[in-house]
């Protein structure tokens, strides 16, 4: 089956999964008297929100077969949007009752209210905290590791409280069909969480890697080379990323997503080019050779390998966003690929241009036109300055055959601009590929 058809099939399956609770409720299998349109609409929204929120656990469980047609980064965009929209439905469920049927709500104090009503309120609060702490993690100054653990725990707590609320209310959930469906739903969630947090990390311990080399690069970057320890390692298409945990047990959930930056044709060996940015990456340089590492991947669809018929490629990178692009270029070079390529690469300064030397070597073996753009050019710099702009991207594109596939990775303002510039040059959306790096 083609990638496109697989994507459609998985999207339909996910839609069916989320819609099932409401379809069962509205099917006539549940023959309970109604309580007025608004009241039952509020109940419907509650069940719908439960299904949407439950579906989030599947979305982020990294099932490679299901995520392959889309790319993990895009699924995280879906995850964020569905979580916010799901929360809107929960709030609507509550507000309809608050204003339309206040007597149906128990007192706000948990001391006076039945457990299941307090559980409903606490669930709403937990989901609110989960979403706020994810959307505004950086402005709130929350570290990645702590956030990740709290996110997983609070999401499970929120979902558990929501189920306590539904089973406790016991009206629709007291009916055989609804109850069976909810129990099946609960069982699947428990299975997914156990698989994701326990089974998968345990399986990962059987496939450890060792840090074989660590070298400092330009622009506060470090390139980490890993070798499989006692197993053949994994194969990857150039461009995607993996979750990496260093020197810790994979069960601790302290792992971080990084793009492969190395040659996909190099058997077993993995390379990651990482910039010192957050709390974890700032200590990356202190990693000792021989440190044990675990890799969950590859994930994502940001790769030239999905476009074997492309007549050429256009790459746009900003800063360390060069990492997945370097992986694609290195791999194309190993394969002696002669298709024309353009790379527009924006960095702060010549000294802080990651993988500069490696790219110069690649220029010799590939049909590559490389345009460096420096924000802070040194004296005597004859190349482009400032930030890559639409004119520059248009110019780079004109040297390439029609129908090229375009890949971009870097800060959002750059990729937004580049997308608009490509569209203005009549590049169809299906030829534009973006690596988003917000795994929250």
């Amino acid at each position: 089956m083609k990638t496109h058809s697989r994507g459609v099939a998985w999207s339909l399956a996910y839609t069916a999964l989320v819609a099932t609770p409401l379809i069962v409720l509205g099917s006539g299998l549940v023959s309970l008297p109604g309580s007025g349109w608004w009241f039952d609409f509020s109940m419907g929204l509650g069940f719908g929100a439960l299904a949407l929120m439950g579906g989030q656990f599947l979305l982020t469980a990294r099932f490679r077969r299901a995520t392959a047609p889309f790319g993990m980064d895009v699924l995280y965009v879906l995850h964020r949007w569905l979580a916010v929209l799901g929360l809107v439905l929960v709030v609507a469920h509550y507000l309809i009752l608050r204003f339309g049927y206040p007597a149906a709500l128990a007192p706000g104090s948990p001391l006076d209210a039945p457990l299941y009503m307090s559980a409903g309120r606490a669930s709403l609060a937990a989901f609110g905290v989960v979403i706020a702490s994810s959307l505004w993690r950086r402005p709130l100054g929350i570290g990645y590791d702590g956030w990740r653990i709290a996110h997983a725990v609070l999401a499970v707590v929120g979902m558990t409280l929501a189920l306590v609320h539904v089973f406790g209310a016991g009206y629709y959930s007291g009916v055989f069909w609804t109850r069976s469906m909810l129990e099946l739903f609960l069982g699947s969630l428990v299975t997914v969480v156990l698989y994701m947090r326990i089974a998968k990390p345990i399986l990962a311990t059987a496939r450890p890697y060792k840090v074989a080399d660590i070298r400092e690069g330009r622009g506060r970057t470090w390139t980490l080379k890993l070798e499989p320890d006692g197993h053949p390692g994994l194969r990857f298409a150039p461009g995607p990323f993996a979750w990496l945990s260093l020197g810790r047990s994979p069960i601790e959930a302290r792992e971080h997503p990084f793009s492969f930056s190395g040659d996909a044709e190099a058997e077993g060996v993995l390379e990651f080019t990482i910039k010192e940015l957050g709390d974890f990456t700032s200590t990356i340089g202190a990693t000792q050779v021989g440190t044990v590492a675990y890799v969950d991947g590859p994930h994502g669809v940001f790769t030239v390998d999905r476009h074997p018929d492309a007549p050429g490629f256009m790459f746009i990178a900003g800063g360390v966003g060069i990492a997945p692009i370097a992986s694609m270029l290195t791999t194309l070079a190993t394969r002696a690929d002669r298709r024309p390529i353009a790379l527009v690469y924006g960095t702060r300064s010549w000294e802080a241009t990651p993988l500069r030397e490696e790219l110069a070597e690649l220029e010799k073996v590939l049909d590559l036109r490389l345009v460096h753009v420096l924000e802070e050019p040194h004296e005597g710099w004859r190349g482009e300055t400032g930030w890559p702009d639409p004119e520059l991207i248009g110019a780079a594109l004109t040297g390439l055959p029609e129908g090229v596939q375009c890949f971009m990775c870097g800060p959002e303002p750059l990729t937004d601009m580049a997308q608009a510039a490509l569209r203005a040059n009549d590049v169809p959306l299906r030829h534009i590929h973006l690596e988003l790096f917000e795994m929250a």
Partner: protein
Amino acid sequence: MSELLAKAFAVGLTVLVVGLAGVFAIRQNMEDGREVSAEAPVSTEAVPPPSTPPSSEALPRGRAVFEEQGCTRCHRLAGVGNPRSPLDGVGARLSADRIRGFVIADEQAAAALSRSVVRAKEAYRALPSADLDALVTYLAASRNAGGS
């Protein structure tokens, strides 16, 4: 492109869920069976009114117990409370004895109620008997399904 599709899919899926919630609410309220409480099936024969009218203190006391005990959380009576399980006219459908049975979830009532509802109702067994009597009297006095 995929990012835009993801956002469109999220909005589409949410609209579908809201639509299905609306359809569910319409279906639930299509038939005019709302006077029938979920947990108080209509008896085949109407219950005759009590031979002696309730005392003047019993009704206000019963109403106060109804409100204090949070009965409105699950039941609606005379326009007040949760529409889920209306009790208007319950006095014409059930005898005072059966109403008492439903309040405290006795063995016969428990067979018709879900486990969580039985658990919630068991707490009312601890009510002072005068309060329970007043509550039953108040409920038995509701003989009009229209809500009076």
